[in-house]
C-alpha cells in the first residue's frame, strides 16, 4: 500500500508502479446484505417510507396473530378432529383403501419428481427430512423440558359461587392414566397468596375451580370499577380546591356517588371460602382391579405432597374428601361418599359437569351451603378426557381418549364404573368442563397443543415421505441401469392410473365395476391394436391373417372382453332404468360399425381417410361408456364387506371430498374442455354456436348457481335423477363448470399459435384432425400450462362452495367442528388450519408448474 518506491516528479509524465496494489474488500456499504438493503429498500425517499411502513405493518400483524395463536387458539380442536379434516366420515373399516391410495400416489409423485424435475429433488428431500426431524424431535424435547400444565381441582364440602353460578366440588372423579405415570397432588398455595394470583390462574381447571377464579376476577373488576369512579371524584374535588374549576357536573357527581354506593364488594374470596385451610384425604383407585393405589395421603398444608404411581393404562378414580366432614367412612367404602353427592349418580355422565342452573340451584338449596371451606388442589398427571363417537361396523361406538398427550395411544372404550360394581358411571374429567384457562405461556403452547399435534401426524408423515423417497430412489436406480425410458413410462402409467384407482378405491369395488373398467381398458387396447395393425399394414384394412399374429390375437381378445364388459354393464345399468335402454339401442351398432366398418372403410379408400378416423368412434364410445358408468352408479349395496362395501358419496367429506371434486373436476373436464375449444373454432355453425353458448352460459354464472342447479333443478328434469347422490352431483357440477374455463384456456393457447403452424401441417398433407392432434394442440396445451394449473388451483379452492349444498368439505368440517361441545367457538382455529392446508397444496402445485414450464420436457420454451 505504500508508494515509497514511486518517485513523483512534476516534470516527468512517466509513471512506473513497482508495487501491485493489494486486493481490498469493497466498502462495507457496497457489498453483501448492506448493499442489497441500500439498493432495494432505501434507494429513494419514497421507497424508504414504504419500507418502514411495510415493516411496521408486518410486525404489527405478526405480533398480534402470533399472540392469538400462542395464547388463545384452541388447537386441540384441530388435533382431535384431524381425521374429520382428512377423510370425514369415511368408514373406518375402509380406511386401508385411502391409505393404500395415498401411499401409491406419493410413490408415483416421487417417481415423477425423479423423472421430470430432478432439480427440486434436493430441496424437497432436505425439506422432508427437516419436517420429519421437527415432527419427531420437537415432542421429545418438549416432553423432557416442559411439564404439562397443572390441573386445578377443588375439594371440600362448601360450594363456590360467582354471580348465579354455584358449583360444588366433586369428591370422586375418573380420569385416564398411563402406566408408570406419576401423579402428584398438593395444595395450590401459590395460587391463593392473593386474589390477583387466583384471578390469574393458568392451566387446566375444573368448573368449580374456575368458578372460584371467576369469583376472584369479578371481585377485582368491581374494585377496579369503584376505584375509577372514586378517582374521578377525587380529581374533581382536587380541581375545585386548587383552581376552583369542577371537572364533573353535579349530575355526574351524583351518579358517580350513587354508583359507588351501589357497588357491593363481596368479602375477599380467599377469606370467604377459607381456601386451603381444610384437610383433604386423597386416594386413587384403579377401576379395572378395584385396588386402592398405595396408602391414602392426607393433605393438611402446602408441604404435604401426595404421590401416586399408576400401574397400567386405563381408568382411575381420584377421591378427594374433606376429612372433617366424612373422614371415617371414606377409606373403607365409597357408598356413603356417593350417597353424599346424589346429583352425580342421577345425571348422565356426559351432563354431569354441565348441570343445568335450575338443577344446580335446587341441589344447592338442599345440600350445599355456599361459603363452606374449600381447598384448591394443584394436580399433576391428570388431564381432560375427550369422548368421541367412532363409526364402526355396528354403528357408533363411544371412545375415550386423553386430550393432551397420547391422543390415539390410550383409548378406552368402556365407561368408568366405580369399584362397588353398581355400574353407575362416574363423572370423569370431561374436556368440555375441564379446559385450559388463562393466557397460555409459550411453553404450554408447545407442550400441550403443538406436541400432541406433532405426535399425531409424525408417523403418517414419515411413512409418506419414505414412500416418496422410495419412488424417487427406484427411478434413480432404473436410470443408473440405463432404463431411463422404462422409468418414465412406468411413471406415466402410474400418474395416469391415479385417478382411476382413486375412483375405485374411494367408491369401493364391485365385480361389475371392475369388469366395466376392464372393458374400457380393453376398448383402449383394441384401438391401439387396430392402430398398430393399420400402421403395419399400411392401412390396407383388417386382415387377421396378415402380419404377425400377436397383434391380431390382441384385437380378438380385446373385442371379446369389451363386449362382455358391455353386456355386464347393461345388466348393471338396467337396474337403473332408462340408461340401459339407451345403451342397448345405441351401443351395439355403434361398436360394430366402429370396429369393422371403419377398418374396412379404411381399406377401401386408403388414401381418403387417415388413421385417426379409425380411432375416433372408439374414443367416442369410450367416453359414452365412462359417462354412463358414472351416472349409472345409482345402486348402492350397503353391505359391510371389507372389499366390496360401497362408500356412500354423501359421506365423502373433508379433504377427501375436496380432492375428489378437484381431481375429477379437472380430469374429466379436460377432454370436454378441449372439445369445446375446438368446437368453438369449428367451421360448422351449429357446433360453433352450441359450444360458444355453453361456454358463455357457464362463464356467465357463478359456481354457486351451477351447484344449486345440479342440486335442485336436475331432479325436476327427470325424477330418476333425484337418486343421484349429492357427491356425484357436485362432481358433475364441478366438471360442467371447469370445462367451460378449460375450453377458454385451451382456445387461448390455440389462438396464440402462429397460423403458419397449421399451414405447414396442411401443406405436408396432414388432415385437419391430424394437424390439430399432432401439431397445434400439443403446442397450445403446453403454452397454457400456467393457466391450466391456475385453474386447477382455483378450482381446488372453489370446491369449498359445496358446503352450501350440504356437503361437508374442509369448510364444512370447520363448521361441524365448531359446534362440538368441547370445541364451541373454535371456528377461527379451523379456518386458519384449512387455510394453511389449502395454501401448502396450492403452493406446491404452482411451484411444480413453474418448474414444468421451465424444464426441458417440452420444447416450446426453447423457441424464441
Amino acid at each position, binding site marked *: 500500500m505504500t508508494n515509497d518506491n514511486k518517485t513523483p516528479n512534476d516534470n516527468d509524465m512517466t509513471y512506473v508502479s513497482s508495487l501491485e496494489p493489494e486486493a481490498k474488500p469493497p466498502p462495507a456499504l457496497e457489498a453483501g446484505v448492506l448493499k442489497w438493503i441500500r439498493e432495494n429498500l432505501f434507494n429513494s425517499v419514497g421507497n424508504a417510507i414504504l419500507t418502514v411502513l411495510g415493516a411496521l405493518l408486518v410486525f404489527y400483524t405478526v405480533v398480534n396473530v402470533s399472540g392469538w395463536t400462542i395464547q388463545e387458539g384452541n388447537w386441540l380442536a384441530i388435533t382431535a378432529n384431524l381425521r374429520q379434516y382428512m377423510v370425514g366420515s369415511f368408514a373406518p373399516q375402509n380406511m386401508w383403501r385411502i391409505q393404500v391410495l395415498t401411499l401409491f400416489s406419493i410413490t408415483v409423485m416421487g417417481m415423477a419428481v425423479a423423472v421430470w424435475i430432478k432439480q427440486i429433488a434436493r430441496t424437497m428431500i432436505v425439506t422432508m427430512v427437516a419436517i420429519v426431524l421437527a415432527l419427531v424431535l420437537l415432542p421429545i424435547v418438549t416432553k423432557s423440558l416442559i411439564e404439562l400444565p397443572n390441573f386445578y381441582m377443588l375439594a371440600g364440602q362448601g360450594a363456590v359461587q360467582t354471580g348465579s353460578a354455584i358449583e360444588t366440588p366433586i369428591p370422586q372423579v375418573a380420569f385416564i392414566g398411563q402406566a408408570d405415570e406419576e401423579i402428584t397432588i398438593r395444595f395450590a398455595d401459590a395460587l391463593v397468596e392473593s386474589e390477583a394470583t387466583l384471578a390469574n390462574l393458568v392451566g387446566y381447571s375444573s368448573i368449580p375451580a374456575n368458578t372460584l377464579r371467576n369469583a376472584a376476577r369479578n371481585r377485582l373488576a368491581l374494585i377496579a370499577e369503584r376505584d375509577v369512579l372514586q378517582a374521578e371524584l377525587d380529581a374533581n374535588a382536587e380541581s375545585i380546591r386548587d383552581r376552583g374549576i369542577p371537572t364533573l357536573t353535579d349530575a355526574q357527581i351524583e351518579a358517580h356517588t350513587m354508583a359507588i354506593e351501589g357497588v357491593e364488594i363481596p368479602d375477599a374470596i380467599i377469606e370467604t371460602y377459607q381456601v386451603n385451610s381444610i384437610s383433604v384425604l386423597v386416594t386413587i383407585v384403579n377401576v379395572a382391579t378395584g385396588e386402592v393405589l398405595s396408602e391414602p395421603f392426607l393433605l393438611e398444608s402446602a408441604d404435604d405432597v401426595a404421590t401416586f404411581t399408576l400401574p397400567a393404562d386405563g381408568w382411575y378414580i381420584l377421591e378427594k374428601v374433606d376429612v372433617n366432614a366424612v373422614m371415617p367412612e371414606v377409606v373403607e367404602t365409597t357408598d356413603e361418599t356417593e350417597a353424599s353427592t346424589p346429583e352425580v349418580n342421577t345425571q348422565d355422565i356426559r351432563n354431569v359437569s354441565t348441570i343445568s342452573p335450575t338443577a344446580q340451584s335446587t341441589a344447592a338449596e338442599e345440600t350445599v351451603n355456599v361459603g363452606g371451606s374449600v381447598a384448591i388442589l394443584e394436580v399433576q398427571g391428570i388431564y381432560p378426557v375427550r369422548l368421541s363417537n367412532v363409526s364402526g361396523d355396528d354403528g357408533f361406538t363411544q371412545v375415550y381418549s386423553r386430550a393432551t398427550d397420547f391422543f390415539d395411544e390410550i383409548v378406552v372404550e368402556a365407561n368408568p364404573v366405580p369399584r362397588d360394581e353398581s355400574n353407575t358411571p362416574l363423572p370423569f374429567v370431561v374436556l368440555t368442563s375441564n379446559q385450559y384457562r388463562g393466557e397460555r405461556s409459550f411453553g404450554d403452547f408447545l407442550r400441550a397443543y403443538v406436541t400432541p399435534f406433532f405426535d399425531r401426524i409424525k408417523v403418517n408423515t414419515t411413512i409418506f415421505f419414505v414412500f416418496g423417497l422410495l419412488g424417487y430412489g427406484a427411478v434413480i436406480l432404473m436410470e443408473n441401469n440405463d432404463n431411463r425410458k422404462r422409468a418414465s413410462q412406468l411413471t406415466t402409467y402410474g400418474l395416469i392410473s391415479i385417478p382411476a384407482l382413486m375412483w375405485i378405491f374411494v367408491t369401493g369395488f364391485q365385480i361389475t365395476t371392475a369388469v366395466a373398467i376392464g372393458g374400457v381398458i380393453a376398448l383402449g387396447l383394441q384401438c391401439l391394436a387396430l392402430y398398430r395393425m*393399420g*400402421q*403395419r399394414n*399400411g*392401412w390396407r384394412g383388417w386382415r387377421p391373417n396378415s402380419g404377425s399374429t400377436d397383434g391380431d390375437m390382441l384385437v380378438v381378445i380385446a373385442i371379446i372382453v369389451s363386449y362382455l364388459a358391455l353386456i355386464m354393464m347393461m345388466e348393471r345399468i338396467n337396474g337403473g332404468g332408462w340408461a340401459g335402454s339407451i345403451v342397448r339401442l345405441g351401443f351395439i351398432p355403434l361398436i360394430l360399425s366402429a370396429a369393422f366398418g371403419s377398418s374396412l372403410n379404411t381399406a377401401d*379408400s386408403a*388414401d*381418403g381417410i*387417415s*388413421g385417426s378416423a379409425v380411432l375416433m368412434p372408439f374414443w367416442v364410445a369410450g367416453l359414452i361408456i365412462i359417462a354412463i358408468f358414472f351416472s349409472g352408479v345409482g345402486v348402492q349395496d350397503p353391505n359391510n364387506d371389507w372389499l366390496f362395501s360401497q362408500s356412500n358419496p354423501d359421506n365423502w367429506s373433508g379433504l377427501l371430498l375436496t380432492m375428489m371434486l378437484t381431481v375429477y373436476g379437472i380430469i374429466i373436464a379436460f377432454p370436454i374442455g378441449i372439445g369445446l375449444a375446438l368446437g368453438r373454432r369449428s367451421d360448422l355453425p351449429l357446433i360453433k354456436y352450441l359450444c360458444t353458448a355453453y361456454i358463455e352460459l357457464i362463464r356467465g354464472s357463478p359456481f354457486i348457481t351451477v351447484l344449486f342447479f345440479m342440486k335442485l333443478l336436475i331432479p325436476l328434469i327427470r325424477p330418476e335423477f333425484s337418486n343421484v347422490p349429492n357427491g356425484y352431483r357436485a362432481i358433475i357440477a364441478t366438471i360442467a363448470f371447469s370445462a367451460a374455463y378449460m375450453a377458454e384456456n385451451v382456445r387461448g393457447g390455440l389462438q396464440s399459435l*402462429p397460423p*403458419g*403452424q397449421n*399451414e*405447414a*401441417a*396442411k*401443406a*405436408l*398433407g*396432414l*388432415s385437419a384432425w*391430424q394437424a390439430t392432434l*399432432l*401439431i397445434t394442440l*400439443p*403446442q397450445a396445451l*403446453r403454452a397454457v400450462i400456467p393457466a391450466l394449473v391456475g385453474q386447477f388451483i382455483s378450482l381446488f379452492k372453489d370446491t369449498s362452495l359445496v358446503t352450501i349444498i350440504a356437503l361437508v368439505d374442509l369448510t364444512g368440517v370447520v363448521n361441524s367442528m365448531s359446534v362440538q361441545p368441547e370445541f364451541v367457538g373454535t371456528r377461527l382455529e379451523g379456518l386458519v388450519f384449512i387455510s394453511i392446508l389449502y395454501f401448502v397444496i396450492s403452493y406446491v402445485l404452482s411451484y411444480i408448474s413453474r418448474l414444468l414450464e421451465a424444464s426441458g420436457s*417440452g*420444447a*416450446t420454451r*426453447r*423457441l*424464441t
Partner: protein
Amino acid sequence: MVAQEQETRLGENAVIECINMNKWYGEFHVLKDIDLEVKEREVVVVIGPSGSGKSTLIRCINRLEEHQEGDIIVDGIRLTNDVRNISAVRRETGMVFQQFNLFPHLTVIDNITLAQRHVRHRPKAEAEEIAFSLLERVGIPEQAHKYPGQLSGGQQQRVAIARALAMQPKIMLFDEPTSALDPEMIKEVLDVMKELAVSGMTMIVVTHEMNFAREVADRVIFMDEGYIVEVGTPEHFFTNPQHDRTKLFLSQIL
C-alpha cells in the same frame, strides 16, 4: 441452343396448369385472369413488388388459399372443394415458407418423419432413414436430434426443405425462402435450392434473389397488381425487358 437444351430437359406434360384463375379477398381482386403452365422439371421464378399477388398465387396451387374462378390442375388433379382432391394435391406438392414454420415442439428428425408416418404411413425406421439421407443432402445431419429453436435461420430453412422433400413431392413451392434470413445464411439455402433444380425437381420460386433467377430459372414471371405482366427466359428478362412496369421494377432493384 439454350432453348433447345431446355426443350429436352423439360417434360412434355404440364404438371401445373392455371386457367383463367381469379381470386378475391372479400371485395379486393387479388389475382386477375392468371394463365400459367408449368412443365415437368421446369424451374419458374416469380418476381414482382410486394402486394402483387406472388405468394397468393403459389398458395392457391396447394390450396392454402381458395380461388373463386377458373381452374387449377395439379398433376392431372383439378382443385375443387373435394377434400380428397386437395389432400392428393398436397401430397404431391412440397412447400417451403418464408418463416420456415418448423414444428417447435418436435426435434428436427421428428419434424421430418411426422408427415411421412402419418400421411405416407411409412414405418418409423424407413422414415428415419429417408430423413437422415435428406439431412445429409441439405448438409446438416449432425443437427438431427436438436429442436428447431436451437438452430440458425439458414439451418432451419434447410430442415424445412428436407421436411418437404421427405414426402417425395413432384412439385416444390418456395414462398420467399430467403427473405427472413441474414445475408450470410442466404447462400446456404440457395445452394440447396440450386442443387434441387439441377436434380430435376419442378419448382415454383417466389423470390427477390435476382441472381438465383438469372442462374437457375427456366422462366421468369413478373407480376404486378395481381396479373402476370411479363414472362420470359432469364436473358430476355434481365437484358431486354419489354413492359414499362418491368423496366421500372428492374431498374429499382438492380
